[in-house]
């Protein structure tokens, strides 16, 4: 299938690169390729995968969500506080609650982008600060530590199913769901249409603003779920949880071939982008790179990756800050009648 191969060229190249990096490290440190080490690598990367999938939905519609990490911190803090106050509260309540809080925050972003037509970068720059501040207000600046969380609260993410943690299973499930959503549902195809050509989308009967709002709500729900997962996995909740992680998430998407101009990218690419960053992050300490230099090296790798990606991109895709309203410039506030 030469066409399919050509279409998946980027994913193929990225997979080769990730494997090559993996092989180089594994040759020097055979333990790196052991089953246990591999599983912990996947477990380490699972949160990045989930968040990057959410961010992908948003970026596909030609928007961006900078508030995901703050959303993680807030949702996680709320369930952690609840768990501290009422240790008997079932996870059947807490986990859906965490996702719902996240979805609420995401919907708030989405409504501002959809109804007020404020550019998403402005909205989420603002809500990033607001949500992060709200964590402080909710917790009063205190920490919820592992001793204050119930055993079941911390146990779920570590629970092994067929030797693999729940967290890793969730990342896999998330990837499958995202693939199904983007490939086989009207809403998912609408994300691509809205981002690829907003003007044409309007004529095709896709409400660009609504698609963006949907993407934000979904991304928020994922961030909310990750809030619980993050707090449970690291067994601590505090104001600065996942601080700055939004940029790693965006980096993973971009490395995975999601065009920041919207409408281009695949789930497989994003997952590979996350795995690439995951392998790198796990390999650096092994290779004896000082922890002080690790940010610099990942920065270098991200920069190189985006240069390579830019060389692949079709020309005329320079529209990083272009809002969807530009496409409808002649008719302010125009949107297709239902």
């Amino acid at each position, binding site marked *: 299938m030469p066409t399919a191969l050509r279409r998946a060229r980027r994913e193929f190249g990225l997979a080769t690169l990730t494997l090559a990096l993996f092989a180089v490290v594994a040759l020097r440190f055979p333990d790196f390729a052991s089953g246990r080490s591999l599983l912990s690598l996947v477990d380490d990367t699972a949160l990045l995968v989930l968040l990057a999938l959410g961010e992908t939905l948003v970026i596909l519609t030609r928007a961006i969500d900078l508030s995901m990490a703050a959303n993680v911190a807030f949702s996680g803090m709320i369930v952690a506080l609840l768990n501290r106050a009422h240790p008997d509260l079932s996870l059947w309540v807490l986990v859906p609650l965490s996702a719902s809080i996240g979805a609420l925050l995401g919907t708030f972003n989405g409504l*501002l982008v959809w109804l007020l037509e404020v*550019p998403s970068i402005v909205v989420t720059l603002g809500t990033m600060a607001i949500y992060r501040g709200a964590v402080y207000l909710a917790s009063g600046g205190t920490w919820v530590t592992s001793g204050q969380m119930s055993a079941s609260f911390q146990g779920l993410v570590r629970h092994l199913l067929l030797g693999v943690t729940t967290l890793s299973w969730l990342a896999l499930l998330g990837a499958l769901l995202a693939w199904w959503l983007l490939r086989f549902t009207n809403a998912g195809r609408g994300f691509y249409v809205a981002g690829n050509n907003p003007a044409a989308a309007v004529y095709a009967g896709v409400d660009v603003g609504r698609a963006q709002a949907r993407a934000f709500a979904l991304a928020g729900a994922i961030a909310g779920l990750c809030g619980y997962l993050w707090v449970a996995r690291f067994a601590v909740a505090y104001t600065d949880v996942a601080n700055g992680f939004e940029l790693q998430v965006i980096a993973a998407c971009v490395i995975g071939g999601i065009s920041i101009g919207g409408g281009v990218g695949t789930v497989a690419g994003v997952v590979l982008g996350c795995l690439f960053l995951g392998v790198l992050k796990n390999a650096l300490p092994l290779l004896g790179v000082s922890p002080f230099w690790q940010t610099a090296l990942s920065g270098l790798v991200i920069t190189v990756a985006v240069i390579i990606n830019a060389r692949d991109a079709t020309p005329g895709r320079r529209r990083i800050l272009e809002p969807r309203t530009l496409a409808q410039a002649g008719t302010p506030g125009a949107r297709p009648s239902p």
Partner: protein
Amino acid sequence: MTAPGAISKVCTALKAYWTGGTWLRWEVFLGAVLVADLVLNAVVSPYFLDPLTLSDATFNFTEKALIALPMALLIIGREIDVSVAGILALSSVVMGLGAEHGLGTPALVGLGLTTGAACGAANGALVALLRVPSIVATIGTMSLFRGVAAGVLGDRVLKNYPASFHWFGQGYVIGVISFELVLFTVCVGLFSIYLHLTLFGRRLYALGSNPEAARFAGVRLTRYRFWLFVATGLASGLAAVLLTSRLGSTRPSIAQGWELEVISMVILGGVSVAGGRGTIPGVALAAVLLGFVTYGLGLANIPGIVMQIIVGALLIVVVGLPIVGKRLQARAHR
């Protein structure tokens, strides 16, 4: 240009500026909010209207505002630079190392500015020559610059700066007017002239409103983009000189999160993220406003993280309100 010619040109520009749009310009609104905030601050704290307090409050925005000015040009030209705080950190570390090797104050300042400009040139090359979208390119270089700074610094703190170096961030020109404030004012003037009175400025608006058309009109897009990034880098280097001099030390966490504050200033100043719209006086007013709002909140003992909520909400409300207003107006006309 002769002096009368220049004066008449300025007058024409000012007239166009005030009569060009509606009377209720964005800058008027910002100015009103600023006055309201000053009054509020004075009511909340009896110490606020002291000249020393007011002078102290200006340090809250001068350094960030110096980066916000070229950032405004970048955003008007449809680009963005999120690596400015990383550049600032790297410049500060380079100066710190220079100071450890016994360099004098002029050499240190030169080193800081050069590092900033070089980082800016790297960003410019990525965006203008290699055609990487600027938000993506500068997210990468942000980790790169900040990472190199952290790597070189390790767990050390650099603080062997010569005594004369402290003047830039701590010195006063006349009375309570600090050097930083004078520098800020001069730069606002220069950037206003550049953007609002010169051909280069007009071309920048053209580039931001419609890059394609601007290219056909003979605007050298690549060159513009490159030099705007260099200017932003240079300004970050300058801010590094001022901040390092004011703090007297370089730590890994220097200027953490400043990129978002700088971008907030620019957007609050009425610059459209879609490009092609915005003024330097607006950005300068927004910078002063944010500086005084956060300073006032500080006087009222409100913790920084709660201020963040207020600034975030301010950003959304301030950008969202005119859009809602326009929508309502359009509905009323229908």
